[in-house]
């Protein structure tokens, strides 16, 4: 079984992230606070509560080297939290947004962070030493709708975004004085701040959960139409692949290696996608075990009742006893999974990761015993 641990932290979790040494987990229990838990003798103890936001915290990221937490919230602001003598001290970052901030991520070098927002803009924030202040620079007028997810390329310049306008875009975030001009790096370092490198118009509906592969060669994101997209050669002539799957749409993805992706979402059960030797991506299988669907309903999901009514009507009510309310989902998560975070052991291949969702649980998964999924 791939599940290592399950813990119910709250009624509902909007986002979660692990501390650099993975001894602590920070999560937002669907309110304006961030709770940090530490595992003490097999028990999760709440050690810190970060209270500063006025509205729901929609994104958290914890930088690996500098040990700083950045949070983004529907109150349109971000805070950078720094641990000073066992106390998390917040610094306000004025994002200059007129809509909610939706997602946040530290850049790989941790000198910048990106915030996606409902204001059709992306904020790139960096620290100004002389003013002791985080500055927010906006990428405006590029998105036609809310920015649902952001992802940094390992080289620290390119940023990928997904949006509810159905597109996936890649921008340059080069900031003079923050990023070193490296002539050898070629195209990416030559672009100006906010320059659109590529716009991918593959989905007919909302897009979510964009991620770069560990090398930065492949980009993956999902559409609300139960499709996942893989893009190679991100640049002037990208190579895109669509993979259709039979169940409910995904919300977030994670590259566990260059050729393997875990997708999580409304189906409550992580899905594994893999590329073969020719680089063709396909759905492999579900990670969690799917219990047999209860005999009361032929549709083992939250739709069972509605579907029963839908078909029952055509049979003039004959089949109505078969329609029962069934809440069997047969999975570890009982509601939509909205986030997946890696747990790094060592090296670039990720064996363990955690998922959190609207059911308030965090589940830790391990691929160790999944022989067919290990290269």
């Amino acid at each position: 079984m791939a599940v290592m641990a399950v813990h119910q932290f709250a009624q509902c979790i909007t986002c979660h992230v692990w501390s650099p040494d993975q001894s602590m987990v920070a999560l937002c229990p669907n309110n304006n606070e961030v709770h940090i838990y530490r595992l003490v003798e097999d028990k999760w103890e709440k050690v810190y509560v970060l209270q500063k936001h006025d509205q729901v915290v929609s994104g958290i990221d914890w930088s690996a080297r500098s040990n700083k937490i950045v949070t983004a919230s529907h109150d349109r602001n971000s805070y950078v939290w720094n641990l000073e003598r066992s106390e998390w001290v917040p610094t306000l970052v004025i994002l200059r947004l007129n809509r909610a901030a939706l997602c946040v991520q530290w850049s790989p070098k941790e000198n910048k962070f990106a915030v996606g927002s409902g204001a059709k803009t992306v904020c790139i924030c960096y620290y100004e030493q002389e003013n002791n202040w985080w500055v927010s620079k906006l990428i405006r007028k590029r998105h036609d709708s809310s920015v649902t997810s952001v992802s940094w390329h390992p080289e620290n310049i390119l940023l990928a975004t997904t949006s509810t306008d159905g597109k996936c875009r890649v921008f340059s975030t080069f900031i003079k004085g923050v990023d070193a001009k490296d002539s050898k790096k070629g195209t990416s370092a030559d672009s100006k701040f906010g320059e659109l490198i590529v716009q991918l118009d593959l989905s007919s509906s909302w897009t979510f959960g964009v991620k770069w592969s560990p090398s930065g060669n492949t980009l993956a994101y999902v559409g609300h139409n139960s499709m996942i997209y893989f893009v190679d050669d991100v640049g002037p002539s990208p190579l895109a692949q669509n993979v259709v799957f039979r169940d409910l749409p995904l919300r977030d993805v994670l590259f566990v290696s260059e050729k393997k992706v875990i997708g999580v979402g409304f189906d409550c059960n992580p899905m594994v996608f893999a590329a073969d030797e020719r680089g063709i991506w396909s759905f492999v299988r579900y990670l969690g075990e799917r219990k047999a669907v209860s005999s009361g309903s032929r549709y083992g999901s939250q739709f069972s009742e509605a579907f029963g009514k839908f078909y029952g009507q055509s049979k003039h009510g004959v089949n109505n006893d078969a329609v029962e309310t069934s809440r069997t989902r047969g999975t570890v998560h009982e509601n939509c999974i909205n986030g997946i975070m890696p747990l790094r052991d060592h090296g670039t291949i990720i064996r363990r990761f955690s998922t959190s969702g609207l059911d308030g649980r965090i589940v830790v998964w391990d691929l160790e015993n999944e022989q067919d999924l290990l290269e």
Partner: protein
Amino acid sequence: MADAEGFVEADNAEAIITRIEHKSRKIETLLKQYKPVEALKTALEGTYAIIGDERCKSAHWIVVHRAIMAIKDVDGMLSSLDPEYYDILMKYLYRGLATGDRPTCDQFLRIHEKLTEKAGHGCILRFLTDTVNTV
């Protein structure tokens, strides 16, 4: 500029109607030979290539509707239909259900149930979310 485009489109529409008529004759032949599944495949083939304006959509819908109504063995049809046609079939099933016509709805709902079992909820979601390639 707009006039020129409109002209090209109208011209194109005539060509599409001709192709749909050709398709319709082929389907009638297949139905006479008791090959309803073959007829349905022919009906669904290359839909997006020949979908143009509303007139083309209606013409094509009549052809597809004819083929779907001729299906008797739903399980047999679905097992021999290539999965790549599931999404487009689902779109036409919803178009049929939207007509509210009793015999059409009975037949389409029967197929909808089996197709959902086979193609999953993802198939329905792709119909719901696709606002560009409508049938």
